[in-house]
């Protein structure tokens, strides 16, 4: 593989001296060329279309691997004996996941930006029909009979239950926030749904995530398994075999209430899996008591960011976990896992950084951004989906060695944007590989919590995470507006205060910024296709302009004046009341609100956190008017 613009980044541990040299060189180059200098050839180079494989499922006979490619809006069929792509079918926009019918004859592909599921005939590899879902479909699975499809709607925050005979939606079940992956239990009795974001709690509390359990007989929510102090629940896998029955769910464990001054020893961020033994609850059971234990997969001096894909070998002996932001596959010996669970209390385990060396028996290097892993039915081979390499890594399971790489047919060159995206997902630029940009910006968005960054009132004035979607024209950055551009935001300052490392070199920084600027806004689900406002939205629009909201949130610049204002939202320990005006695009996707994440909903901005009418004169508004204003804001 050839880099189009710059040399490949080293795969091994970054040495400080080398980084210092690179950094110094970057500074010199930066001064000489100016902060917006472009590498030769970047402007006129044709933009190749990457595949960006994000998920895969294997056919029941183990012959084919179906790969969902989100940037190509397509699904590929890989013939596993020959390890070649043999078919390709176009689906909707931003496909995210795939389910295979129990008989293997039908594939269901979720199209996140089309709000549909493509139904594909696996023999002809053609789309047979398209089903409507809720907003932002992602994970999905059929029931055991293949008659019902469960689809997690990441934007609607619910689960569509579709009748596959009629294609109609039977019901929607309330999920938490950003439901992500859907897994049918081995006995077919339950469907598990993970959520990327946690409950909207007070900004002073640790996040609580949730694994939703759906009873497939009643098609109702049987239980909501709470997993405290974690975020970003990803894939779900159920252990097979007589010792199985438990689930592994990768997670991120943030300590966002701690000041971000010391990142080692698991002080700020760790990565691991939840071990969950479901209670086998019936709908509405009064006291389902699923057991949840948390295990870290980090080593004390080396972290493995972005725990994402997970799969068991058919005999249940090993569990494979991908680390999307560390280009690594960890292999867990489940016998050792059981011993660990037996020997160390559940109260201690979530913070023990010596667990991985007890239970992880292999660490295998993959290609960039491994988001998913599947194991062949014969248990001899695993396939890792390398999202930012357009490839699969083939793993020999008995030996746990890399057997090869399957090229899915993406472009051979790496553009600046592509390298920027790879950097975004690369934790090696952080001390001990603790986290990447993507760690706190899952899906280029928010993690939904407020962080204790290295701010003046250390440990007390927390700031909420801000989205990266559609921010290219919204400078300055940072809540205090002190960063005039993204190069400053993502440059040496972030390296020093967040990554605790030398950070990116000049070229890398430029490519990273180019990528961030390219992150698009998703479609607006609250605005009609023809742009016509509803009566409530229209009334809200009138209020927006009558109240002068457009003074600080002008429509012509993404509803931000690109300045800081004091609107009376400073908290007790804030040293300044001046905060950068946030853009309002897709505001409904970004709770919590305000600089410190105090406002859990749009309504709270005005009902609770505007007591002196400094954030607009709103105290004279009726509840009806506030509702209308909120409805209008959702259309932006």
């Amino acid at each position: 593989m050839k880099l189009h613009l710059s040399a490949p980044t080293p795969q091994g541990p970054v040495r400080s001296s080398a980084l210092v040299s690179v950094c110094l060189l970057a500074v010199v180059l930066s001064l000489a060329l100016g902060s917006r200098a472009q590498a030769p050839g970047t402007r006129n180079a044709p933009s190749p279309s990457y595949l960006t494989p994000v998920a895969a499922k294997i056919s029941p006979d183990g012959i084919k691997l179906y790969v969902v490619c989100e940037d190509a809006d397509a699904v590929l069929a890989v013939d596993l004996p020959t390890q070649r792509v043999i078919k390709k079918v176009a689906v909707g926009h931003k496909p995210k996941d795939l389910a295979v019918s129990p008989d293997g004859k039908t594939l269901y592909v979720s199209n996140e930006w089309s709000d549909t599921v493509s139904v594909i005939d696996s023999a002809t590899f053609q789309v047979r029909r398209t089903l409507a879902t809720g907003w932002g479909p992602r994970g999905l699975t059929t029931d055991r009979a293949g008659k019902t499809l469960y689809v997690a709607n990441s934007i609607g925050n619910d689960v569509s239950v579709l009748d596959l005979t009629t294609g109609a939606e039977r019901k929607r079940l309330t999920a938490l926030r950003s439901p992500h992956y859907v897994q049918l239990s081995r006995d077919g009795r339950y469907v598990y749904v993970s959520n990327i974001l946690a409950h909207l709690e007070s900004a002073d509390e640790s996040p609580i995530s949730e694994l939703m359990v759906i009873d497939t007989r009643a098609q109702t929510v049987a239980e909501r398994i709470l997993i405290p102090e974690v975020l970003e629940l990803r894939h779900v896998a159920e252990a097979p075999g007589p010792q199985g029955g438990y689930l592994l769910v990768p997670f991120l464990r943030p300590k966002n209430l701690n000041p971000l001054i010391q990142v080692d020893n698991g002080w700020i961020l760790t990565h691991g899996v939840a071990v969950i033994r479901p209670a086998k609850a019936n709908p509405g059971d009064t006291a389902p008591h699923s057991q949840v234990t948390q295990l870290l997969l980090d080593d004390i001096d080396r972290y493995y960011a972005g725990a994402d894909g997970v799969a068991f070998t058919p005999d249940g002996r090993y569990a494979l976990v991908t680390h999307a932001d560390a280009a690594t596959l960890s292999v867990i010996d489940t016998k050792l896992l059981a011993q660990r669970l037996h020997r160390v209390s559940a109260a201690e385990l979530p913070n023990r950084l010596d667990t991985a060396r007890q239970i992880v028996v292999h660490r295998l290097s993959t290609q960039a951004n491994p988001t998913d892993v599947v194991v062949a039915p014969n248990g001899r081979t695993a396939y890792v989906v390398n999202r930012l390499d357009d490839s699969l890594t083939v793993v020999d399971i008995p030996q746990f060695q890399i057997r090869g790489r399957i090229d899915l047919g993406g472009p051979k060159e790496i553009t600046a944007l592509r390298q920027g995206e790879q950097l975004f997902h690369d934790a090696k630029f952080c001390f001990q590989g603790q986290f990447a940009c993507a760690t706190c910006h899952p899906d280029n968005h928010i993690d939904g919590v407020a962080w204790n960054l290295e701010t003046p009132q250390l440990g007390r004035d927390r700031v909420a995470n801000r989205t990266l979607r559609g921010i290219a024209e919204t400078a300055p950055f940072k809540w205090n507006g002190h960063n005039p551009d993204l190069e400053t935001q993502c440059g040496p300052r972030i390296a020093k205060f967040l990554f605790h490392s030398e950070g990116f070199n000049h070229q890398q920084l430029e490519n990273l910024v180019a990528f961030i600027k390219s992150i698009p806004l998703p479609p607006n689900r609250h605005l009609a296709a023809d742009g016509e406002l509803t009566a409530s939205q229209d009334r809200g629009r009138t209020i927006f302009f009558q109240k002068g909201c457009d003074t600080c949130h002008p429509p012509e610049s993404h509803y931000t004046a690109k300045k800081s204002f004091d609107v009376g939202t400073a908290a007790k320990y804030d040293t300044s009341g001046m905060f950068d005006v946030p853009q309002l695009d897709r505001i409904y996707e970004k709770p919590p609100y305000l600089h410190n994440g105090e406002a859990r909903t749009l309504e709270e901005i005005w009902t609770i956190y505007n007591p002196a009418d400094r954030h607009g004169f709103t105290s004279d508004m009726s509840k009806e008017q506030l509702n209308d204003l909120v409805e209008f804001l959702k259309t932006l």
Partner: protein
Amino acid sequence: MRTATRIRGLLGTVALLCFVPVLAAQTPMLYTKWENFTPANGMPDAKVFSVAVDGERVWAGTENGLVLITNSKVAKVYTTADGLPNRVVTGIAIDKKTGDLWLATFGGLSQFTGGEFHNYRSMSSGLANDIVYAVALQDEFLWVATAAGINRFNLRTGEWSIFSERTAPMHEPWSYAIAVGEGKVYVAVWGGGILEYDIAGGYWKPYTDPDGEMEIVLFKNQGLIHDIVSGISYNHDTKMFWAATYFGMSGYDGHNWHNYLSTDSGLASDFINATQTRGDDVWACTDKGLSYLNFKTNTWVTYRPNKETGKGEILITSPDKKVTSIETATSLAHNYILNLAFQGDDIWVATAAGLSHGISQSHKEGTSNEQARASR
């Protein structure tokens, strides 16, 4: 066919205080066996505001929490410590599709789903007011009756609409109850009569007392009997809605009003908290007992406890106004009735002193109502 204990079967077991021959065709169904749930057997509070039935599960909203009753036992009590937004649970709606409960409380609206409470309050959502009296589901909308108007919550988009004195033909905002009819939603407004919302047209139509008098009923069957409406129900069998007021009961069939006062019918009292319907029967929850009218036969039955004997009393008022009184060994927990719900042939009654379960003849020990019905 609905079955319950009939008078013929009761002759040997109950004492008839005043024997009146009743024709078989006019014989009403009676509940002679009651079991009561009070603080003595696990209820968190004596006062029960609301009750709803979901198969074999019975949910009760009390002045101190939400109660789940299964197999004739209090199985679980949920309080504010469990996440309930307020101790007073005034209304319950069961989403039959999702299995979720929607709860009206005096501290906001709550969705009870998968064992967790998701709460909505006026400060953090589009809820009109935190004093919520009732909830009802209509397709993908949740209707919420509050002390400051009516909310319609779109469960798909999250949009909150408010209908109040500013946006609907209501001169009082206190909305007490909601019933979903066919293409219509009915709201009981305390002091404002009944509001009917046309779902397709998106407009409101008010029904108010034509005589405009708060103290007297001047035109008995020419309109709603009184503007202080505390409850509303819709009968899908007869296509009628029935309103509970503090001055009598009103029914409307689309053409004619059918109004009832305690002075000229078997209604126990004109002070009515709620109405519910089943088949031809209209039930009125009054401050002096539980009454029901068989609309087809114009026969009334009232249940009330006898304070002196502690036993139950059933009063049957035939169309010719003759009254039959029957004493039963068990009775309602109290004569102040707040609401009721049906469980097959059984009945669950919310009273000021406990939740009462009226057990039908078809209800056998260890046999579900569904099984009992199937066997008939």
